[in-house]
């Protein structure tokens, strides 16, 4: 919890004492998950129930979803980097952007702008969604998180859970609890043929948006002074402050950047599922947090790769791992696979796939 406990080893790296029952249990757990995955995959592939084109579809969808997870994960990772707290409400901040985008989209589709000037309309949708997310993220930071900046323990997290509820219920109260369907664009069902494989344009568009947003973010974080300050704060807050970095401004900047990414993610997510709902932010939020941890929390490239990986596992997983084991309706277990990945990462590799130093610092 606190940064002082450097002595505690992460559970994976148990260079301590003899093997006890707990270790055996943990190894059994690992082996069981691995065995299910391997047997399931082998069985599925041997049965040959899915064609190559279907696998390609799964993977394509997975990468599309993954790029959205990656965008959301960036918000977690940056805030965690500077504040060492989980912004539990980040998924719901994303949801507010999706609603803002929805109202703009239904507006422009009603008045015909979407048909006549599609680029302008889409830019407007993204801009409004991003602005909304940034505004909500900054308000959250100012009123709910800043008072807890230096308080230890679980107070900030409990407060963040409260914020998450307030955001969901505010949207529900203001805009209603029904599922709203996103207006379709003309190119929504369009498909491009690439070497005999069908690639939906929406998927390409979403991936394109996500990747360009991430590139811009990477440049901001690595090429600007503010980005440098942010990296400095996430290395060592006190030292950065002594070097003249205004920590408050950096925190606000991190929330704003995270909000902007959430705004892009929200529109992309709504484009994929073509609907918005007040509870839509919760599950992707939690999973994206898992993605951020998977990539090593605090690491920006890590969040991107973690998100992609999680999306891929979730899309391919039910078919690949569970179908072969004869489980009925494996798609109902899709979210469970996502959560299982999250859990395995938190338990066995809290430092993530790439991080080592970060994990030690927080352990």
């Amino acid at each position, binding site marked *: 919890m606190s940064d002082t406990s450097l002595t505690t080893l992460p559970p994976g790296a148990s260079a301590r004492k003899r093997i006890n029952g707990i270790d055996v249990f943990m190894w059994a757990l690992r082996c069981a998950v691995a065995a299910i995955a391997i047997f399931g995959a082998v069985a599925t592939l041997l049965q040959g129930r899915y064609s190559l084109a279907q696998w390609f579809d799964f993977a394509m969808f997975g990468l599309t979803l993954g790029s959205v997870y990656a965008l959301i994960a960036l918000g977690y990772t940056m805030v965690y980097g500077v504040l060492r707290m*989980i912004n539990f409400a980040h998924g719901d901040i994303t949801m507010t952007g999706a609603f803002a985008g929805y109202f703009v989209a239904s507006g422009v589709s009603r008045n015909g702008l979407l048909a006549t000037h599609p680029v302008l309309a889409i830019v407007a949708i993204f801009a409004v969604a991003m602005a909304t997310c940034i505004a909500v993220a900054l308000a959250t930071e100012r009123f709910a998180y800043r008072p807890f900046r230096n*308080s230890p323990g679980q*107070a900030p997290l409990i407060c963040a859970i409260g914020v998450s509820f*307030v955001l969901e219920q505010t949207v529900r*109260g203001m805009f209603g609890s029904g599922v709203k369907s996103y207006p379709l664009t003309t190119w929504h069902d369009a498909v491009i043929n690439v070497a005999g494989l069908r690639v939906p344009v929406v998927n390409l568009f979403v991936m394109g948006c996500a990747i360009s947003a991430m590139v811009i973010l990477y440049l901001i974080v690595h090429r600007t002074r503010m980005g440098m300050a942010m990296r400095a704060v996430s290395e060592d807050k006190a030292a950065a402050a002594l070097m003249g970095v205004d920590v408050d401004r950096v925190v606000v900047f991190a929330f704003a950047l995270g909000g902007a990414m959430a705004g892009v993610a929200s529109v992309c997510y709504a484009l994929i599922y073509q609907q918005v709902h007040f509870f839509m932010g919760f599950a992707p939020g*939690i999973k994206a947090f898992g993605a951020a941890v998977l990539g090593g929390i605090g690491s920006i490239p890590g969040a991107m790769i973690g998100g992609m990986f999680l999306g891929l596992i979730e899309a391919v997983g039910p078919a690949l791992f569970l179908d072969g084991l004869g489980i009925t309706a494996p798609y109902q277990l899709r979210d469970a696979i996502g959560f299982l990945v999250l859990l395995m990462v938190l338990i066995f590799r809290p430092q993530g796939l790439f991080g080592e130093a970060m994990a030690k610092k927080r352990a």
Partner: protein
Amino acid sequence: MSMRQDDGKTPSLQLRRGLTAGAAAALIAIYLSSVGLIAMMNARPVIANALTLAQMTLLTIVFLAGALSQRPSPQDRTPAFWTAPLAGAVAGLLVAGFAGVILSVNLRPVFIALVPPLARLLTFGQSGVDGTAILVAGSALVASAGAFYQRLPDKVRRLLFPAALSVLLCGMFQEFIQVILQSNALFRWLAPWFYGWDGLTATGALIVFAVALAAAALPLVYRKPAGAGDVSSWRRFVPALFILLLLLLVPIAGGPYIAQVFLLIGLYVLMGMGLNLELGLAGLLDLGFVAFFATGAYITAILTADSPLALAHYTAIPSLSFWLAMPIAVLGAVLMGILFGIPVLGVKGDYLAVATLGLGEIVRIVVQSDAAAPLLGGAQGILQIPKPQVGGFQFGSAVSLFYLTLAAALFAAYCAWRLERSRLGRAWIALREDEDVAQAMGINLVQSKLLAYAFGAAFAGLAGSIFAVMVNSVFPSSFQLLMSINVLALIVVGGLGSLSGVVLGALVLIGLPEALREFGEFRYLFYGLALILTMRLMPEGLLPASRRRRRLVSPIAVGGSTPVARP
């Protein structure tokens, strides 16, 4: 220093204060209107034909703005009185403007709550230039009243506040109080004094106010000499005893609906005490707590139900009675707790919260899926769970089940109380304060953590078992993550680690939304706000645990300027 204070009294600072307070009040009113709360509150009268809850809320917001504008701040020790009417006028003007916008622009397609009747409600039926002037003046007056209240001596405020609160409660809950009064010949003659057929009368409100004022004044008259050490120790039990008495008597008097509400409160108290062991004592923030509750409910279901999914149907195990199934359900939940706890033993702090959340969600998704449907019924659940029976008596009614729950909760409270003072309890507290130090002091981390999960799970399993017989069926959709968060909210609001806090938290967070039925859909907004506000304003909760209270008085924490809760 004195120079700066004089600077603070400049009109510009006072002006800003008034403007900010007014704008904040207006924003809160606009927010409450936009989410639809104000319109809904209007349906509930506080004083019949005179004051609805919505009007009361709006007036309270302005009143508070006036009061808060008078609170001394570091820059400004003695705020000027005129900031209050200014704040009130600004709030009135902004709200009137908002109402004007609602009337002139059709916001309905986006904001579903912003309809013309709301605008009339916000402006108290006033309109036009004159109406706006009346509104602004009235609002300034109310804010001035707030400022006046703020300037009253502390003693007087301590009398007025409970009196006003009593009027509010007697008005809001008039239907229940009327039922209770009517059900008993002893009280029936009282009813006409307070209530008309449509709610609290103005005379009734005055009487309640006066009686509450007198009751609040009593302790001032018969005050024990200050500094008597024993006073605080027995005083701690007074609220607990009072609540217990309330719990014992109200369900009989109040009829089946109130009994049902109290039954639900009892179940949440059970769960709250369980999570309190995990979070309040051992510091393990468990968001997958609902899984234990579900385990208890499902085990009870498959052991006792008269359904094809019951074990008796396809194995040699006979169909058990509730009394045999309940202990097995509790044991099953304990096992679940340990199985749940082992993987996350090494996960700490915030990560633990997310990991347990993931575990709980996995359990729910698996139970809900068709894959597990042959065993657990999938989304259709398990039906036809019989009610418990003793001899010829069946625990069929909510009232009888409530007393069963109460007995279980008392037993659980006794266990929790003993546990807290045991070696294990102290080990948990040490664990919460600093895991590494606790380990260095010889505390077995694995054992004490697993025991925390096991005991927490036992309480939740017991609650789940009773829940299953209460609703006669179990469905996976009853075991959402939201339930874990409900339990978390009630123990945080009540005060982490405090047993009486759990009861109070459950009464406020579970009982209030159930009693105000029409607000059911807003309960999660209420929970979210309760979590944030509790953490910000009173991190120790409504009834702080004694151990924490000691800390508040003499903070041993180093480095922090203000003592903060470290749950």
